[in-house]
């Protein structure tokens, strides 16, 4: 990152003036933390006692045999407390908030995993917490909304624009400019104005730092390829960062939605639909029209349904250091089904994109090679969406019966 927050020509900090001083303070505190080895130690201690770090690297033998290619290893970020990699970033920022003495945190959330992790951190550290979530995402990630509220957070459904992640980010910024004195905005992914892309990637880099030792121990050498799903890009940056120093191919899998030619997708880098733009505080490749108005995106996975992408990944894409692919909603459901049946593991819909991307290619590699799939989160949160997509009859009956029970209660 250069002094103005750019990675190559991407990134920066396009922020309203009212936030200028807050960003100065944040950059200063972040720089102090990076220089202070005690901070990272405190972070590791917190993550190993409150979350589940180091998360395991699982050898997926059945899947490996099924495809007959490279050995498939799964980095288990789903086993973090709150069920996703989001906790890595949130706990790190929580320690920062404590140092800065702020009393309130706000966050945007798509899949609800980041909101959930933030609500958890706020409860643990005794902070007030407000979560902004697109109305569409509130509906598709209802279990997470329930838990956030139970942990004491206020969840505000955002009804503007496309009612998804980008709109939740705008609304969180509107809150921040209003309550800047006592509030920290816990940005959930490696996007937004500097220093967020770099700072979030730093906290997430713990994934790759662990994985490098784990794969050497299990497999004796570096993997050939690493796959991660890419929404904003934080889990991808988290596992990629350490491996950028090695001779390993890094593959980011974006949300193909209904297909690359459908117009209903969130493929920023693996298609030619996106163009350079500046929004939400940073410069990157955005899905936008010729006037610069952001387009509607679609993905079955709320956490990938986003118009922009990490400026760090855009820089790496431009330098050809990371390859980008996409997986459609349908491929993702198949990959999810196969992973559950073969390994007894339930990836989040977001993470299932990485599995789908890997399954397409793994058969072409030798059995002596290995790949790592970053399982960014667990699928429990998606039970309504997944059950709906599978048209599961016993689940549907359960919902109908419960619905009847509740309507009786409320009419009686």
């Amino acid at each position, binding site marked *: 990152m250069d002094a*103005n927050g750019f990675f190559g020509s991407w990134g*920066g*900090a*396009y*922020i*309203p*003036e*009212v*936030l*200028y*001083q*807050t960003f100065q303070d944040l950059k200063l505190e972040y720089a102090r933390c990076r220089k202070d080895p005690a901070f990272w130690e405190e972070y590791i201690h917190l993550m190993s006692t409150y979350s589940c770090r180091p998360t395991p690297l699982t050898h997926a033998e059945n899947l490996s045999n099924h495809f007959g290619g490279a050995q498939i290893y799964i980095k288990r970020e789903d086993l973090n407390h709150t069920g996703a990699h989001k906790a890595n970033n949130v706990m790190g920022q929580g320690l920062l908030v404590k140092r800065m003495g702020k009393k309130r945190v706000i966050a945007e959330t798509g899949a609800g995993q980041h909101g959930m992790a933030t609500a958890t951190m706020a409860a643990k550290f005794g902070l007030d917490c407000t979560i902004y979530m697109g109305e569409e995402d509130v509906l598709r990630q209802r279990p997470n909304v329930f838990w956030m509220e139970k942990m004491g957070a206020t969840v505000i459904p955002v009804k*503007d*624009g496309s009612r998804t992640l*980008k709109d939740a980010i*705008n609304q969180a*910024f*509107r809150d921040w*400019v*209003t*309550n*800047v*004195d006592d509030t920290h905005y816990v940005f959930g992914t490696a996007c937004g104005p500097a220093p967020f892309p770099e700072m979030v990637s730093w906290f997430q880099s713990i994934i790759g730092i662990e994985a490098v030792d784990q794969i050497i121990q299990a497999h004796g050498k570096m993997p050939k390829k690493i796959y991660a799903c890419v929404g904003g890009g934080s889990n991808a940056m988290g596992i990629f960062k350490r491996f950028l120093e090695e001779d390993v191919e890094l593959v980011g899998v974006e949300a193909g939605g209904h297909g690359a030619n459908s117009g209903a997708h969130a493929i920023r880098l693996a298609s030619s639909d996106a*163009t*350079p*733009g*500046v*929004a*939400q*505080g940073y410069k990157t490749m*955005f899905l*936008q029209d*010729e*006037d*610069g*108005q*952001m387009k509607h995106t679609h993905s079955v996975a709320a956490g990938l349904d986003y118009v922009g992408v990490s400026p760090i990944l855009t820089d790496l894409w431009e330098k050809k250091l990371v390859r980008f692919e996409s997986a459609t909603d349908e491929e993702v459901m198949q990959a999810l089904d196969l992973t559950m049946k073969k390994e007894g593991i339930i990836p989040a819909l977001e993470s299932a994109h990485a599995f789908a991307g890997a399954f397409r290619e793994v058969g072409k590699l030798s059995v002596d090679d290995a790949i790592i799939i970053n399982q960014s989160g667990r699928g429990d949160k998606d039970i309504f969406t997944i059950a709906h997509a599978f048209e599961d009859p016993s689940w549907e009956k359960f919902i109908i019966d419960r619905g009847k029970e509740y309507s009786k209660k409320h009419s009686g």
Partner: protein
Amino acid sequence: MEKQLRKKLENKEILLMTHIVLGYPSLDVNREVIEQMVSNGVDCIEMQIPFSEPMADGPVILKANQEALAGGTKVDDCFTFAAEIIQQHDIPFLFMTYYNIIFKYGEEAFFKRAADIGMKGFIIPDLPPEMGESFLALADKYKIAPVLIFTPTSTDTRMEELASHGRGFIYCAARRGVTGSKSEFGDDFKEYLGRCRAATNLPLAVGFGIRSKEDIDVLKGKADMAVIGSRTIQLVESEGAEAVGPFIARLR
């Protein structure tokens, strides 16, 4: 533009700037509203080119942006409309928008077209001077005033830094937050305006939550221009374009 404003200040206690969102509710209504504003003595108008992600705007202007876009308003329409309006009315006009609109159009092409139609200034709330090196150079080249923003969180040093890049006037946000809701003009506010005054010789415009004659009376003698934003948009929504003229006339 600074000269134009100073000249107006010779015989007015305080100037008025108003805000419209182009295409909301329609360009035809915009035209009528501007006519009402100018004939009732508005000194300066900022025309907002709608953007899908208006991060610094509150609910009223946010909704106006969304509806303008839903109604099909294009950047090109905004230029054509602005050209017509500038021809008709002899007051300075500014474009207010977010940086992506300019970036996507092509910075230089945008400046050139704006200069050609006689646009006097730009207000871009998500472009701090650190990010606007080429923007500021083009503003200089095309003689379009880049209006920068002071806020209550700006330190004295920061204000001086901003003032060194700003032209035309300085937009002082009356409070933290987004456009729309009411501002309080207590002691803190007076102290803040004093700091603004000390930091620059440019005229000071005060905006955010100004909605009545009482608000404007407080600003007299302390600021050079009062900015009315969300209030007239709401007025058009509730009472129609013809209510704007009488409202403006009662403000001073």
